[in-house]
């Protein structure tokens, strides 16, 4: 039968790819027909909104100036990484991955944003741009437009980072039941009359054909935890035609006060999420997977008066996955001497974090680095990660 969903003008990322494949391949410098097919990897990006304290998560214990700035914010029982850097004890699973050659930390890094506003910073973190509010699309969205793979966000709204020309699925558990699917069908002609609601309604009707009954998989669908969202993302991504990219949108890293309680708990949840994702995708898919956390900025090197830290600049990016060739902490370490701090207070970022974002896109989606730079995100030094990705 002719599908009611098969309108010609529909632009999903897959059809977008089909329509533009020849054109874009021809336009790519350095990508010949002999090049390997586009990557079949999986990328889970976890947004850590609020400004994650990289010095608390991955403290540079080899830097003898660290204790000058911090008393309460260096945990006991740190987990050893490379001797110079250590891992917060709330992240034992990540530590295991590190020992297995499957974890990468980029430290002393940030997006190129120094003005310490969450909202400008998050806009650049997601937009991948040089200045705030420059783009209505996100760097993952543009990457998906170029690569033509499906994606899913584990949130109700589509975060800026995934917005592009194509359509992104979304999944988030509800406490209420769906009405009878016949009612959805009746709305089909009503939704289709609207240019922007139409594609969304069509995707919803498509999902109802093979509904993923995921609400019951959450302990409390009214309050889904990051690790449960990661598990759900992993299950979807493990399917052969499943999404190649997923995003989890987490908040709560703005640790102005009592940081040790809040940040430790949050890092523990991220650790659980990485482990849950690895289990959900299974060993084969994990081999081609990468999980990466990104945040808008780091925090002040020194503690403030409320056992917390204020908005800063440099921080770390945490990545784990079977896609990595080996483990390591990558840093051009700026040092924590007072004169080395950014504006006398923040960890300096010596590496543009977007370089790792770009390298990840190449490794996961098979996008040419030059194409990434020209169409997706300004990632100046993807070569830094050649040994890892």
């Amino acid at each position, binding site marked *: 039968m002719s599908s009611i969903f098969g309108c010609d003008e529909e632009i999903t990322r897959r059809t977008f790819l089909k329509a533009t494949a020849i054109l874009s391949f021809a336009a790519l410098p350095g990508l010949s027909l002999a090049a390997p097919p586009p990557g079949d990897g999986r990328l889970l990006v976890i947004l850590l*909104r*609020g400004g994650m304290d990289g010095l608390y998560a991955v403290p540079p214990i080899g830097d003898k100036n660290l204790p000058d700035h911090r008393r309460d914010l260096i945990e006991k029982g740190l987990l050893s990484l490379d001797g110079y850097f250590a891992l917060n004890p709330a992240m034992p699973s990540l530590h295991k991955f590190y020992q297995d050659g499957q974890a990468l930390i980029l430290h002393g890094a940030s997006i190129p944003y120094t*003005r*310490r*506003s*969450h*909202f*400008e910073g998050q806009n650049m973190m997601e937009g991948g741009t040089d200045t*705030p509010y420059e783009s*209505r699309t996100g760097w993952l969205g543009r990457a998906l437009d170029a690569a033509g793979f499906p994606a899913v*966000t584990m*949130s*109700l*709204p*589509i975060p800026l980072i995934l*917005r592009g020309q194509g359509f*992104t*699925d*979304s*999944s*988030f558990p*509800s*406490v*209420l*039941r*769906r*009405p009878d699917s016949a*009612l*959805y069908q*009746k*709305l089909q*002609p*009503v*939704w*289709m*009359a*609207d240019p*922007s*609601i139409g594609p*969304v*309604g069509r*995707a*919803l009707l498509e*999902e109802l054909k093979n509904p993923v009954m995921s609400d019951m998989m959450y302990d*409390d*669908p*009214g*309050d889904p935890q990051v690790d449960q969202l990661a598990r759900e993302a992993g299950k979807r991504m493990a399917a052969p035609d499943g999404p190649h990219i997923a995003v989890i949108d987490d*908040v*709560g890293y*703005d640790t*102005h*006060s009592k940081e040790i309680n809040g940040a430790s708990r949050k890092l523990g949840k991220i650790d659980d999420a990485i482990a849950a994702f690895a289990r959900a995708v299974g060993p084969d898919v994990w081999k081609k997977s990468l999980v990466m956390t990104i945040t808008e900025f780091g925090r002040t090197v020194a503690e*403030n*008066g*409320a056992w*917390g830290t*204020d*908005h800063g600049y440099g921080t770390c990016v945490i990545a784990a996955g079977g896609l990595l060739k080996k483990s390591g902490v990558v840093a051009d370490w700026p040092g924590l001497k007072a004169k080395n701090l950014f*504006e006398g207070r923040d960890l300096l970022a010596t590496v543009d974090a977007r370089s790792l974002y770009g390298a990840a896109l190449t490794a996961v989606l098979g996008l040419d680095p030059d194409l990434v730079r020209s169409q997706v995100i300004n990632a100046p030094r993807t070569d830094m990660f050649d040994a890892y990705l």
Partner: protein
Amino acid sequence: MTEDTNLFAARRLGFGLRLGEDLPVSPRDWAMEQIRAIPKLDFYDVGGQPLASLPADAALTDYAQSCLRFGEENSAEEDILKTHGDDEDFWKVFAKYWEIPHWGVAMAATLSAINGPGPVFERFWQFWCNHFTASTSTGHGKTLIGAHVQTIRAAMTGSFETMLQDAVVNPATIYYLDAVYSAGPHSRAGKTFSLNENLGRELLELYSVSPAAGYTQADVVETALMLTGWAFTSGPKHKSSAVYFPGAQPGRVFFKDYHEPGKRVVMGKTYAADDKKGGQIFALIKDLASHPSTAKFIATKLAIAFIADQPPQESVDRIAAAFTASNGDLVTIHSAVIDEVLSVGPNFTKFTKPSAWLQQAHRTLGTMPTIQPPSAQHLSNGLSALYKDLGEVFGGPPQPNGWPDTEADWLSQANLDRRMRHANAISSSLKPTVADDLTKYVERLAGAGSPLAVACANSGVVHDIAVMMLVSPQFLRT
């Protein structure tokens, strides 16, 4: 367009019309009259009368109501613990007592919007509560949210400067943005505590001039220093409070021992010291309120909320001009918004965010949202949990910039599915007797012969018609 002007105005400026209802006067008169006086924030029933009492556990509902009054939060909390301390089931709920104030505020705001006398007022009030977001994600701070929204409400017919001042030096804001422990390095408390920049930064960035004003990190620090000393106390009864000072009254209070002494400079202007009374920050707030960037920033935000995701610049300019010419008089500013909505607004559609959609659904259908408080067995079955399920925790956005307000932020597959589920629940109590009115409303909304009217006519079942109407593009947008 298929919508008539009255219905458009009632939906864009308020929460819509009941089935079979029309505006009693012209849209402009109807809207303007509502913004001049402050209706009581209350738990209204469908007939517009305050509910005699909320059902279920009286202690919880009393507590929720007390959370809507200023300064009584913690004594109510202590009383409730005294009465129910041994009751295990009760304790299961109250252990999560921070859900209760949120539930109470969501309840009162919702019932005021859907059944109260001033929907246009409520719409603007909800805008300002979101602008001055002071939700807290944990603990004690949540009990202050009622006082916070009442502070905003009381300022609705005055000047922006007064609202800004009251909202910033407000217990909920002080707590939420970490100013409680913030102390100047040269203050007496500076030996123990140090400066926290959070509130100083958001005062500039989110509440007033916005980054467009070009302030620097030094300006942020100076602003934070001016704010030092402003804290709150929750009264002598609540000794476990973060800031208990014997003998102090509940509410906002200035502690000179925390205040950084001396003059300060923000954006090039010097502010004289006022180390005993803390008036220095109010001198800055006065200048921030009248800064040209503030008028532009607020006007843009209002235009996005009421006119279009990308509003015409002329509309923004006219609202900003009204702001400036009236020295930030909120009634004048709201009047300008109303005029823009009625003249320019019909050229655009606005995708409705979840809170306004839920409220409009109930107002239109004459239904009541669940008024049960969260129970021990089901902490997630109260009204506040329904808002959360729709994606917009009422009065509790994840970050201090509040909830967004554009189609890109709210239209997704999961969101559309979510509206289906809630429309299904909302429509479940409708009686077959509303069939005629419902059909007429659908035709009024979408036009006779429209895909929606046709689908509804083919269905014939009241529940299904209502669901289809609530999740139709015509209802999802105003």
